[in-house]
């Protein structure tokens, strides 16, 4: 499993380790260079001293070295060697410590002498400097002589230097290792401490159940980095709570809606059982009507659920609106007549009005809107359906009674009905909720408004803002 803490620990340790190695190597390298430079400077000083002590006289080149000049070279821990040649190869002087072994005859100029590492005659590692120079004249007569050149090579035992460098390398390596070892728990502790709010957040999240969705994570006490995600989590909880509450309310409403038809069915059946002599075909018709009413409710709920889960596939086609409106309106007029209800309803849709949509869903929206108009327009009331070609808007208007602006937000709620008694057996309060869901699926916008003249207008806008 991926662990941010483990990953961070590893990354930090790798980075820190790399940094330590690089810095240690750099320290070692620069110290070595500085020490070598200093060492070379010492060698050069010796060489320059020999150079300044070398003179050209009548007897050739002479070196007048003080007796103690290389004394330390012979009894010290870091023995030093020198050898002076004439360019023709004649040895002019050499340190006693060389015994019979010569130093390599390599050289540079006095301004840019040559330095190199070598194995000393003592068998130890050493460093040497070689330069070629013209010895100064011993006196005025010597100045008249043809100038000759000499080569001096000075070498010294480097063991002490290399030991110092070895110690430095060891110290750097051990310090680095110790630093890494100490860093592991420190980084781990720091990360653990830094991640403590995450753990706390996880514990709080784990404690949230369906029954405690009103809980919100405290944001102010959290580190700045966690605040944005905690705010998003709180937003998510808010949406979840709203959704659960809506579902809970819907379940309660549905159970409530089903209680009355169930009570009707049960009492019908019980009366039949207790007093069988009263059985007649009317009872069966009543039973069938109750079953049909419950079936209609369940069917609509299923349609709504399918629509909301996006399981309805659309088949777009050109639909002529006017013929469809007439087709839907005719049976509603017939129903109104059977109830002796007089409604003046105008269809103001041009015959050529056409819309690109799914015919079945559009028809369902029309059926619901017109059925509502037919049901809730009062006796001798007025209504109309019209099409605004420019705005691409279909409006269904009708006069209403007992409806006020406070009711409008509830009109599209599932199972909501103005008449709390639910007396109307044919309506279950799902038609408008279904219409809005279908409209949204088709990309339309279904809105409602109530005028001061008690005219309710449902507008189906086919062009979204």
């Amino acid at each position, binding site marked *: 499993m991926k662990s941010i803490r483990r990953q961070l620990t590893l990354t930090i340790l790798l980075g820190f380790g790399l940094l330590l190695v690089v810095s240690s190597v750099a320290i070692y390298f620069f110290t070595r260079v500085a020490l070598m430079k200093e060492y070379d400077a010492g060698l050069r000083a010796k060489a320059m001293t020999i150079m300044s002590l070398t003179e050209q006289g009548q007897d050739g080149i002479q070196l007048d070295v003080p007796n103690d000049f290389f004394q330390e070279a012979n009894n010290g821990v870091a023995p030093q060697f020198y050898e002076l040649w004439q360019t023709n190869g004649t040895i002019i002087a050499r340190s006693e410590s060389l015994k019979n072994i010569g130093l390599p005859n390599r050289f540079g100029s006095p301004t840019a002498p040559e330095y190199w590492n070598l194995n000393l005659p003592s068998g130890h590692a050493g460093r040497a400097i070689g330069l070629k120079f013209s010895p100064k004249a011993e006196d005025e007569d010597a100045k008249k002589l043809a100038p000759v050149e000499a080569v001096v090579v000075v070498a010294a035992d480097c063991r002490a230097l290399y030991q110092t460098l070895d110690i430095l390398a060891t110290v750097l390596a051990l310090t680095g290792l110790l630093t890494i070892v100490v860093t592991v728990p420190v980084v781990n502790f720091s990360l653990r401490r830094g991640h403590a709010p995450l753990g706390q957040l996880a514990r709080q999240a784990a404690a949230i159940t369906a029954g405690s969705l009103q809980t919100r994570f405290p944001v102010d006490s959290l580190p700045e980095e966690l605040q944005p995600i905690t705010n998003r989590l709180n937003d998510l909880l808010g949406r979840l709570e709203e959704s659960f509450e809506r579902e809970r309310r819907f379940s309660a409403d549905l159970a409530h809606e089903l209680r009355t038809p169930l009570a009707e069915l049960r*009492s019908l059946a019980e009366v039949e059982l207790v007093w069988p002599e009263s059985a007649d075909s009317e009872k069966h018709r009543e039973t069938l009507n109750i079953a049909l009413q419950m079936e209609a409710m369940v069917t609509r709920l299923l349609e709504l659920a399918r629509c909301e889960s996006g399981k309805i596939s659309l088949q777009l086609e050109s639909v002529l609106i006017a013929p469809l409106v007439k087709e839907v309106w005719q049976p509603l007029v017939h129903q109104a007549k059977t109830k002796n209800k007089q409604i003046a309803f105008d269809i103001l849709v041009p015959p050529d009005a056409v819309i690109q949509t799914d015919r079945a869903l559009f028809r369902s929206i029309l059926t619901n809107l017109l059925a509502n108009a037919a049901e809730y327009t009062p006796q001798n009331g007025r209504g109309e359906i019209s099409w605004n070609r420019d705005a691409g808007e279909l409006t269904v208007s009708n006069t209403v009674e007992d409806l006020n602006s406070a009711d409008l937000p509830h009109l599209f709620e599932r199972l909501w009905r103005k008449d709390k008694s639910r007396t109307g057996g044919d309506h279950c309060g799902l038609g408008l909720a279904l219409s809005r869901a279908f409209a949204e699926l088709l990309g339309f916008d279904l809105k409602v408004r109530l005028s001061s003249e008690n005219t309710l207008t449902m507008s189906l806008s086919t062009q979204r803002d």
Partner: protein
Amino acid sequence: MRVLLVEDSQRLQKSVGKALRKSGYAVDTSGDGEGGLWLAESNDYDAIILDIMLPKIDGLALLRRLRRQGKRTPILLLTAKDTVEDRVSGLQMGADDYLVKPFALEELLARVQVLCRHRYDSKSNHLVIADLKIDLTAHAAMRTGQPLDLTAREFRLLEYLALRRGHIVTRSEIETHIYNDSMDLLSNAVDSAICSLRKKMEPPGSSPLIHTKRGLGYTLKEQP
């Protein structure tokens, strides 16, 4: 016993009304709160069965108005609302009982019977007057240990007289509490019913329990 049923579901009104009538109750019905209130104010019912969600005036408002007027008629709330809050609020407003839909008809009838008994301050299921014993739960009556063969209406008449034992019950009260509006009530229907009841419960040789108070009505009591 006369019962008012206020229920907006026509189907429920029909079946519950029928069950009550078949059980011997006189039943008035209304499909909305306004009609229910008018009937409750105009008549003296032994019990009222009241739906909460009604058109025009809802059941709880109707209940509140009746109690405010001082009407003490026992009221059973019949509703689809089943939460504890709904029940408590209904009972706190003065309802005597609460039944949630869907319900068992038998339970409804039993509860209505209890409410009717409470109307006459009777808490027992058995009424005993001399050698007459009435079992209100079993709808059975016995005289000197012999069961009486009574019709549902005769039993309700006997029950009504027994619940008001010692009191004079007028013909009009009997008409109101025992007979349905729908019935063509003959002028001597009450006298005929009393006569029929007397024949069944007062065989020759037994002491009379139903006494006629001329010009006033009837009373059921043991002869001193």
